[in-house]
């Protein structure tokens, strides 16, 4: 069942991505409306995928790389839809949609069987740690896209040749503010995820910190975002500079996420 939902979700996200691309190209409001309906529909199927997977495994479905990617994609879309209600950054969908699609396509190439968790790792810290971590990552992903949008819009305005996406992208100030906001939410979540991870590690293996790849990379990412936030707060980093840094930080985050999962085969290599 979950597999059917998974493929429907992927297909609907593909449609949404195409619609968003068409919107960026033709800039007709109707296309944007349909694209939003598409991504919301995709999200509904995505939720069903996660739910059925959860029921099948009996725990938060994040123990395999396949599940992790599906979950990350889901939480990013969820966050985007929430953001849409309050701040209406509609064009952001044009970035979130292909991102979610890409994660799902990657996930579809990976083994789908449910990985059993060794009893020693079985703990209520698992969902807490994982949800905090992915929620934080999702905020950073949105910050990344908002940063990219800022860089594009900045380039249009600097070049003084206005065309294409200039007409549909929000104002620089809006993009900068939203980017900042996402960082402000993402950072405490990442911090909390590292702490809960440490607690879980102590609980399962008797040690808070073991300098494993995963832990080192989280720390590096944490420092990057800490520096960025610090710079924004005290040195008045903003705009293009802040956008570039949030992009770099996110690439480091996503890079470490993939590298570690590929190296370890999922869940930070705790499973074997």
């Amino acid at each position, binding site marked *: 069942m979950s597999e059917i939902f998974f493929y429907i979700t992927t297909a609907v996200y593909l449609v949404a991505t195409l619609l968003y691309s068409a919107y960026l190209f033709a800039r007709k409001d109707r296309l944007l409306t349909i694209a939003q309906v598409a991504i919301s529909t995709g999200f509904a199927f995505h939720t069903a995928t996660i739910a059925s997977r959860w029921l099948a495994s009996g725990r938060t479905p994040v123990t395999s790389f396949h599940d992790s990617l599906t979950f990350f994609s889901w939480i990013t879309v969820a966050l985007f839809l929430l953001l849409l209600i309050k701040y209406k950054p509609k064009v952001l969908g044009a970035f979130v949609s292909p991102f979610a699609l890409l994660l799902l396509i990657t996930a579809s190439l990976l083994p789908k069987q449910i990985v059993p968790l060794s009893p020693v790792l079985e703990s209520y810290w698992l969902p807490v740690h994982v949800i905090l971590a992915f929620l934080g990552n999702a905020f950073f992903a949105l910050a990344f896209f908002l940063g990219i949008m800022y860089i594009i819009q900045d380039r249009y305005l600097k070049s003084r040749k206005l065309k294409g996406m200039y007409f549909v992208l929000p*104002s*620089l100030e809006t993009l900068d503010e939203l980017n900042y906001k996402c960082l402000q939410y993402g950072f405490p979540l990442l911090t909390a995820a590292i702490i809960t991870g440490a607690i879980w590690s102590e609980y399962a293996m008797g040690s808070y910190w073991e300098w494993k790849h995963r832990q080192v990379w989280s720390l590096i990412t944490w420092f990057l975002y800490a520096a960025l936030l610090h710079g924004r707060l005290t040195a008045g980093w903003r705009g293009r500079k802040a956008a570039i840094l949030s992009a770099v930080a996110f690439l480091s985050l996503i890079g470490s996420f993939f590298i570690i999962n590929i190296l370890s085969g999922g869940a930070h290599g705790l499973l074997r």
Partner: protein
Amino acid sequence: MNLVIVGLNHKTSPIEIREKLSFPSATIGEPLSKLTSHYGLTEAVILSTCNRVEVLAITSDIEKGTWQIKKFLSDYHSIPLEKLDEHLYVHQAEDAVKHLFRVAAGLDSMVMGEPQILGQVKDSYGYAVQSNTAGIIVNKLYHKAFQVAKRVRTETKIGESAVSISFAAVELARKIFGNLTGKNCMLVGAGEMAELAARHLQSNGVREIMVANRTYEKAVELVKCFCGTAIMFREFPHYLKNVDIVIASTASPNFIIKPEQIHDVMKERRHKPMFFIDISVPRNIDPEINNIDNCYLYDVDDLQGVVVANLHERQKEAEQAETIIIDEIEKFYRWIKSLDVVPTIIALRQTCDAVRKAELAKALASFPNLTEKEQKVLDAMTSAIVNKILHHPVTHLKKESNKIEGDLYIDTIRKLFDLTIDDEAVKKAAQSNDD
């Protein structure tokens, strides 16, 4: 309905011809009355702007009417028709309705989607009403045209993008700052264009406007109309750190705002974005400033480019607007063809039937012994009489209502039978035709 438009515009004729054909609004009543009194047109409207001159008329014979308008234009302005004819376009019937809708919506304008034309069309209609050359059809047609223009404006973004330099500046400011509320603006030099841009910025929420001018008195004079602050010209660099938008328009031959200066200012204002608008020639702001992070500099040529880009973007909206117009023409036709005739026929039938029923009841009361069958025969007979009498009038009414005299017929029938058509019935008929 025989509707015809004859006219010329910026696309079909050079300015030399257009200015010869124009009708000054102060004396437009005279040519309007001439059209209906001397040229055999039933209703007439003249639209005369700097980009177009058009005569819209209702006529009993479409070809003759067209020729009459051409003749009128030639006679009135004493230009031989042969010379004029090549510049004139003719739109008839449905095509004319479409043309009027497009003009009113700004789709036929030189600057696509510009809003002034709607006001001019409204005025032209107003003159026709004043001169008694607007009748039932013109009334309906123009009200529909205003409605269509409004729909185009609300459903497409055709009127949205800025197409003048000062509007373009405001739009750019919005793309940089989002909301302009609470932003500060400084005019360095008090030129007319700078003033215009500042006014637009202020009406978009800009809080404070400072004016620095070499002649301090002139700055003081200018700030009176903005409720702004006048500052000494040599002091203006000190205020830059609190200013988000700078508009330079001095006559200085050199750059008066330099990158070194702005580097410091940016540090002081913690790199909050600044928008520089340089509308002076030669330029007053060093173009290098555009390379500083979070600084955006546009000179007159750049703004002109923005205007062109905005216009280009508008073109896309036009397609959608054209669909709206086609949709509205269909509605209009269905509406105008039957709005009057349907409720009139219903009212006519109801009135006659009411008389019949009342008289039948009276007659039956004096013959209490009639059998049910006999009663039915009487009922059927009276019905038949009424229907047969009404048959020809109704058929003719339906047929004629599509023609120009249709309104006359409808009006006559209503008067002869003293039909009152309540608004409810009209609305109902209009709605059923609108959908």
